[in-house]
C-alpha cells in the first residue's frame, strides 16, 4: 500500500462531501417522495397502531335461547365484551341462525335447549351447543376456547353452590390459584406492539428501496456515465448514497418515535434511545447492501420495484413482525435466521419495550452486524464488478 499524502486524503473527503450533497439535493427535490416518506413515518404508523388488534374482539354472538330462564340469561350475560358481543338480533330458528352465519352477520351462534334450567336444578348434565364460523381459523379457535372457559366456570360455580348447600365445601379446597403477570406491556395494549412493529417495517422497506432506486435511476437516465468518467471510486459513488438515505430514514424514525409512538400512543420507552439509534443506523446501513445488490441486477426502476417486493415481503412476514415466529414450520424458522429483520425486531422491541441493554442484546446485535456485513459486502462486490 502506498502512503497517501494529506492532499489526497483531503481530496478523497471532498469528493465524498460533494457526492453526499448531490444525493441530498436529489432526494430533497423529489417532493412527492418526501411527502410519502413523511406519511409513512407518521400517519401510516398511527393507522397501524390505532386500528389494529389481533385479538378476538366483540365477536358477534347470536343467541337461540329456547329456555329463557334465569339460568340461561345468567350464562349468556357472561359472554360479554371484550371477547364477545351479543347481537341485538335473536335467532328464532336454526335456519335463521345458519343464514346469519352465512351472511357473516354472526361469528357464533349459541343454542340453549328448552330444559336447561330444569336439568341444572335436577343435577343432571345438560348440553349447550355453539356453532362457530371458522373461516378465520385462529379466531374460530379463540372463540371456542373462550366459550369453553366461560361455560366451564359457570358450570363449576353452579356445582359448587349446589354442593355447598349440601354441606361439602370445596370452595376453599385444594385448588391451584394462578396469578398471571404480563410483562413489558401489562395491559396488552396492541397499539404499543403494532406501532413499533410498523416502524421497524417501514425502516426496512425504505432501507432496501431507496438506495436501489437511487442507483438504478442513474443507470436509467444515463447519468451513470458521468459518474463513471468522474475521478470517483465505486465506494465514493455508493457510500454517499447510502449515507444520505440512512440520514433521511433516521430522521423519519426520530420523528415517528417522538410524535406518534411516545406522543400519541404513550409507549414507555424503557431502554436507551442512543443504543436504538445506533442499532438502527447499523441496520439501515447494512440492509442498504441488499438494495445495492438489487440495483446491480435490475436494469430499470420497474425491475427494482418487483425485486424489492420479492425480497421485502417474505422478509416481513417471516421475521415475526406480524406473526409469532414460534408457530412457523421448523425449516421456515431456519430461513428466518438469515433475515436481518428478524434480529432487528428482537433488538428493537428489546430496547424500546423491554429496556434491554447491550449486555443482553449483544449476541443479536453481533449476528445482525455479521449478517449485515455479508449482505453489504455482497452488494459492494457486485457493485464494484459492474464498474469493471
Amino acid at each position: 500500500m502506498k502512503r497517501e499524502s494529506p492532499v489526497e486524503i483531503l481530496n478523497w473527503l471532498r469528493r465524498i462531501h460533494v457526492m453526499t450533497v448531490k444525493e441530498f439535493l436529489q432526494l430533497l427535490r423529489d417532493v412527492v417522495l418526501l411527502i410519502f416518506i413523511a406519511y409513512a413515518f407518521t400517519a401510516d404508523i398511527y393507522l397501524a397502531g390505532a386500528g389494529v388488534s389481533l385479538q378476538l374482539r366483540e365477536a358477534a354472538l347470536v343467541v337461540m335461547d329456547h329456555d329463557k330462564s334465569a339460568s340461561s340469561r345468567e350464562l349468556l350475560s357472561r359472554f360479554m365484551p371484550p371477547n364477545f358481543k351479543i347481537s341485538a338480533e335473536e335467532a328464532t330458528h336454526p335456519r335463521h341462525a345458519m343464514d346469519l352465519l352465512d351472511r357473516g352477520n354472526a361469528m357464533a351462534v349459541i343454542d340453549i335447549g328448552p330444559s336447561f334450567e330444569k336439568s341444572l336444578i335436577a343435577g343432571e348434565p345438560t348440553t349447550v351447543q355453539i356453532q362457530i364460523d371458522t373461516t378465520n381459523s385462529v379466531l374460530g379457535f379463540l372463540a371456542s376456547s373462550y366459550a369453553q372457559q366461560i361455560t366451564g366456570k359457570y358450570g363449576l360455580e353452579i356445582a359448587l353452590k349446589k354442593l355447598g348447600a349440601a354441606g361439602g365445601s370445596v370452595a376453599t379446597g385444594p385448588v391451584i390459584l394462578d396469578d398471571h403477570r404480563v410483562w413489558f406491556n401489562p395491559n396488552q395494549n396492541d397499539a404499543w406492539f403494532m406501532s413499533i412493529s410498523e416502524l421497524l417495517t417501514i425502516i426496512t422497506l425504505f432501507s432496501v428501496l431507496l438506495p436501489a432506486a437511487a442507483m438504478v435511476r442513474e443507470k436509467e437516465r444515463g447519468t451513470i456515465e458521468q459518474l463513471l468518467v468522474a475521478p470517483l471510486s465505486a465506494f465514493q459513488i455508493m457510500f454517499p448514497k447510502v449515507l444520505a438515505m440512512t440520514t433521511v430514514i433516521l430522521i423519519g424514525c426520530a420523528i415517528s418515535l417522538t410524535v406518534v409512538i411516545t406522543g400519541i400512543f404513550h409507549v414507555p420507552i424503557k431502554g436507551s434511545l442512543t443504543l436504538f439509534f445506533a442499532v438502527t443506523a447499523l441496520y439501515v446501513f447494512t440492509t442498504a447492501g441488499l438494495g445495492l445488490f438489487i440495483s446491480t441486477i435490475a436494469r430499470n426502476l420497474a425491475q427494482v420495484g418487483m425485486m424489492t417486493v420479492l425480497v421485502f415481503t417474505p422478509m416481513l412476514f417471516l421475521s415475526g413482525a406480524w406473526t409469532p415466529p414460534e408457530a412457523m414450520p421448523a425449516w421456515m424458522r431456519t430461513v428466518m435466521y438469515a433475515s436481518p429483520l428478524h434480529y432487528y425486531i428482537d433488538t428493537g422491541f428489546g430496547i424500546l419495550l423491554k429496556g434491554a441493554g447491550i449486555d443482553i442484546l449483544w449476541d443479536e446485535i453481533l449476528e445482525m452486524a455479521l449478517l449485515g456485513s455479508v449482505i453489504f459486502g455482497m452488494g459492494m462486490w457486485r457493485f464494484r464488478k459492474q464498474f469493471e
Partner: protein
Amino acid sequence: MNVRRISAVAQKEWREIVRDKVFFSLAFIVPVAMMILLGYGLSLDVENIPLTIVDDDRSAMSRDYAYRFIGSRYFDFKGYTAHERDLRVLLTDNRVRAAIIIPPDFEKNLLAGRPSAVQTLIDGTFPFRAQTTKGYIIAINSAVNMDLMADHLSRAKGISIQKAHELLRPVILETRYLYNQSLKSIWSLAPKLIMLILMISPPFLTALGVVREKESGSIYNIYVSTVSRAEFLIGKLFPYLAISLVNALILFLLATGLFGAPFKGSVLVFFASTLVYVCCTTGIGLVASVFVRTQTAAMIVTSIITLVPAVLYSGVLIPVFSLEKTAQVVAHLLPAMYYTNIVTACFLKGIGIAYFWQDILVLAGYAAALMLLGYLMFRKRTSS
C-alpha cells in the same frame, strides 16, 4: 373511441412488457413466490411457546403439575430454571416467552386441602401471543383443578371420581366448527392470500407502466398523437389486466391444488368477481400513477396505499367487526374487504351469489370511480 387505436396502444404496451424479460417474468414470479412463502409462513397459530418453570417445591405434585405444561404441544419446554431472579434475563432476551413459578409448600397446601398460588409470567410484547398463551395456561390449570377437586370431592363424599367429575361439570359445551371443520389455518389463509396478492401486484405493475412513460419522456409521443385520453388509458391498462387475470388463475390453482383449500362455490361467479376486483386494483395503480412523476415515488406510493391497508383492514388477519370504529370505517372505504367476503363465500362457505351480489356491486362501482378519476386527472397537456 377507436378500437384500432386502442389495440395499437395495447400492442405497443404488450411488446414493451414482453421485451423486458426480467420485468415480464417477475410479473408472474412475484405473485407465485408470495403465495407459496406466505402460505407456509404467515401463520397466526400460537404453538411451541418457549417455556421455563421454576420449581421451588420439588415434590411429586409439583412435578406432575409441570408435566401438564411440558407435555402440551402448545409449549416448548426449555428446561427448569433454578432461581426466580434469572427469569428477567430469559424473558428479556426472548429465550422464553412464559415462565411458571411453583412456590414451596405447593404439595403440602394441596394435600392439606388448602389452595396454593402459582405465579405465571408472560412476555407481553406481542399482545396477541400473550393473550393466547394466557388462554392455554388457564385451560391447563383449570383441567388440573378439575382433577384435584374431583379427587377431593370423591374422598369427601365417598363417590367415584367419575361421578365427581360429572357433578363439577353440569354444563357441557358442544362446539361445532362451520366452514372449516378441521380448523386448518391454511384453508382460511390461502383464499385470502389471493385477495392480498391481487391487491399488491396489479397496481404495482400498472403504476410503473404508466409512470415509466412519464419518466422516460416517451409519453410526449402520446401527447402529440391522435390517440385520445380514454383510448390511451384503455389500451395501456389492457395488458396489465390480462397479466393479472392469468395470475389470478395461477393463484386459484395454487390455493386449491398446492394448499388443498376447498372450493365450494361457482367458478364462473368467482372469476367474474375477480375480474371486477382486478379492474379495481388496476384502477388504484392508475390513480397513483397520475399523481407521481418518478417511478420510485410510484413504487412507494402504491406499496403504502395497497400493502399495509390490505393486510390490516381487509379481514385477512383480523375480522372487520373486531376493528376499532375508525378502522372499520377505513375498511369499508377500501375494496379489499368486499373481495374478502366474496373469496370466503366462494371458497369456504359455498354460498350463492345471492349472499354477496352487493359486494360485487360495490367493487364494480369502486372500479368505475377509480377509472373515471384516473381519466379525469390524466392530462394530455403538460402543466406549465
